[in-house]
């Protein structure tokens, strides 16, 4: 019976989490009590066994590379953009207005793609990624009425792997647009739609390097972006559905 108060704290003792004074008192008790000593030893052995058994799963090299690439690309992009802007300033001074106009459009294009990537990640990181939650395109499309200055069609998804999660209104280059989120096999895909005239020209060339797969095209005066960590094939299939619906 004397040991019961000690035993209640035995786990905390073997975890080394008792206050210093209690720890010393417990040490003294364990040295003089064979029952508590055996119990403490058994629990330490159990801790070690769980530690060994718990280190059970190892990620594949391919998955490790994928994660490393996905998180390494972000700072590199910032660095490259900063370097490009500095280089741009120097070239502007030396070469003149024609060259500066060309580089300005290129920089603007990269900026747009970066902002699209940011909008995609920000939505997924948000506790409420969409403002209208529905798998029904006939609910999501009308929700945008009066919120954005254009209309667009959402594709029929029957017999496809895609499912609509919902939508929200976003801004790009200070112009309003629609942000739709789709799921395909646990991956989230963002489809963003803006008026072409509100964006920089020459967006048709895909970005050289982004941490995501992306496809963009212009149709009926609207600019579409499809972006995700899903495969390029999935993105292409969803893009084709949109092209067919528009």
């Amino acid at each position, binding site marked *: 019976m004397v040991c*019961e108060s000690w*035993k209640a704290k035995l*786990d905390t003792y073997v975890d080394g989490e008792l206050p210093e004074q209690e720890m010393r008192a417990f040490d003294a008790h364990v040295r003089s009590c064979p029952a508590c000593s055996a119990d403490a030893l*058994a629990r330490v052995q159990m801790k070690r066994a*769980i530690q060994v*058994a*718990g280190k*059970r799963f*190892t990620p594949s090299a391919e998955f490790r590379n994928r994660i*490393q690439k996905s998180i390494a690309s972000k700072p590199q992009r910032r660095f490259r953009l900063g370097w490009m802007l500095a280089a741009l300033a120097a070239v502007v001074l030396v070469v003149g207005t024609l060259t500066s106009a060309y580089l300005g459009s290129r920089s603007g294009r990269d900026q747009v793609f970066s902002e699209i990537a940011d909008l995609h990640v920000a939505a997924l990181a948000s506790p409420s990624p969409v403002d209208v939650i529905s798998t029904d395109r006939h609910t999501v499309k009308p929700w945008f009425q009066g919120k954005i200055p254009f209309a667009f069609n959402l594709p029929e998804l029957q017999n496809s792997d895609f499912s609509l999660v919902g939508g929200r209104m976003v801004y790009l280059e200070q112009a309003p647009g629609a942000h739709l989120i789709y799921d395909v096999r646990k991956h989230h895909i963002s489809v963003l739609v803006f008026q072409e005239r509100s964006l920089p020209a020459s967006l048709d060339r895909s970005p050289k390097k982004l941490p995501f797969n992306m496809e963009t095209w212009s149709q009926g005066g609207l600019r579409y972006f499809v972006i995700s960590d899903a495969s390029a094939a999935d993105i292409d299939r969803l893009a084709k559905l949109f092209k067919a619906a528009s």
Partner: protein
Amino acid sequence: MFYHVGVSGVDLQPASFEELAIPLFDQLYNFAHWLTQNREEAEDLVQETYAKALKGFSSFQLGTNFRAWMYRILRNTFLTSRTGLKATMTVPLDPEEDGPELAVDHETPETLLFERSNRELLQSAIDELPVHFREILLLCEVEEMSYQEISETLSVPIGTVMSRLSRARKTLRDRLRRPQPQVGAATAAITKGTKHGL
């Protein structure tokens, strides 16, 4: 600006997200696999965790525990996933209060365990634990987190960490105490007895 945070304090070396997060990759994956019990879902969970953490890195507070922050993101992502919702909905949380564990039997689960030297037995018993017991046990024993770190990771008070950990261990010990499969015909019958519901 972020800095490498060492055991002895704060070094004045700026640390990138990659430098801080990549060393945690193996252990985060191991933890994710234990939670999801599925390789593909574990990969999706880790990938989503890294994407969210990278995006939110600017809001990470200097001087706070980066490891606990990463585990918290992973766990919260898991809890809102389909598998996580299913795991938490099908296993209701017990009250946190629990009486002290009393005297040790002559033949303890530990002695039985080590006599069998059976790591698979232990892994299987951990697998069968409810997710809130499984996660706290792994954070304490495998990740060797302090009670304070576990408290930050799970967003619960330290008192809850202590009581939940105690009940997790008790549940594990109870499961190990039950008869284990031996050989031949006896195996099926005994297995049926150990594969009880949660």
